């Protein structure tokens, strides 16, 4: 019985954690919520892996290069503003 309840709680925490990993990474959870994530991640290899790869993904996105604008972009816009 206790085992079943633990499993049910684990699954509840698993789903909740999976939904809130971004909020956790972004520091947008309250303390109790953060602890809930950390406690679950500590015992769930799957969520640990998702969190680790999500972090790498977001870090990778932040390191993407900005495409260079075409030369004279602002002037071309200003030129359009001057058109009748």
């Amino acid at each position: 019985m206790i085992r079943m309840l633990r499993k049910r709680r684990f699954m509840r925490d698993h789903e909740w954690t999976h939904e809130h990993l971004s909020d956790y990474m972004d520091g947008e959870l309250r303390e109790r919520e953060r602890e809930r994530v950390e406690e679950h991640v500590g015992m769930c290899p799957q969520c640990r892996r998702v969190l680790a790869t999500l972090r790498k993904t977001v870090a990778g996105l932040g390191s993407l290069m900005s495409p260079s604008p075409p030369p004279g972009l602002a002037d071309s816009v200003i030129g359009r503003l001057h058109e009748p």
Partner: protein
Amino acid sequence: MIGIGMAGLAALGGGWQPRGDAQQPGAHMSRGVAPASTADEVLVERAQAGDRDAFEDLVRRHADRLYAVVLRFTADPAEAEEVTQEAFLRAWRSIGRFEGRSQFFTWLYRIGINEAKRRAERRPAPGRVVSLEDEPAEEVADLRESPEARSEQGELRARLEQAIRDLPLDYRAPLVLRDVEGLSTAEAAAIMDLGEAAFKSRLHRARLAVRESIDQYLVEAADQ
């Protein structure tokens, strides 16, 4: 040619700080440009009073970054330039209606992204991933075929760029604004005219989808 990344350059909470390379030489640059310290709000007020020079300063300040954002929603650089021009034209025409409840760049980006999305929706649907529920495209084999062909970083970036392009537009925007451009959740949600809860939900879905597309690469890279 590739410029520097913008994430981290965004002046969070205080509007964009003008970059030193924002000015382009040209026929319209003979007059003095507003000092970098002049706040957007001041230029907007002057523009609302009919001062076109003030609006041109806003163009010089924001054009490059707006272009970089809309390029991720358009088919090619030429269309991104058109969208950038169109966004500023619309902003100039309706500057009198800008109430200043958000920052100027928030308002401008909303105009630009909406214009880019409007054009994207008119294009034929891509034959690739269009739903976040779909399985990710099986491109990992390509990576395995030539692991030494490109550097790991270059490969990861290419895969990330493709994963971004594969996202539906409503999910692409949160990801681009928050994770690529480095805006805060509040700023990015305001640009999309979404509540923060809805914005965060889309952002999380988008991140999971991108992660899914590069997951095997991340594992392989970690194993090496």
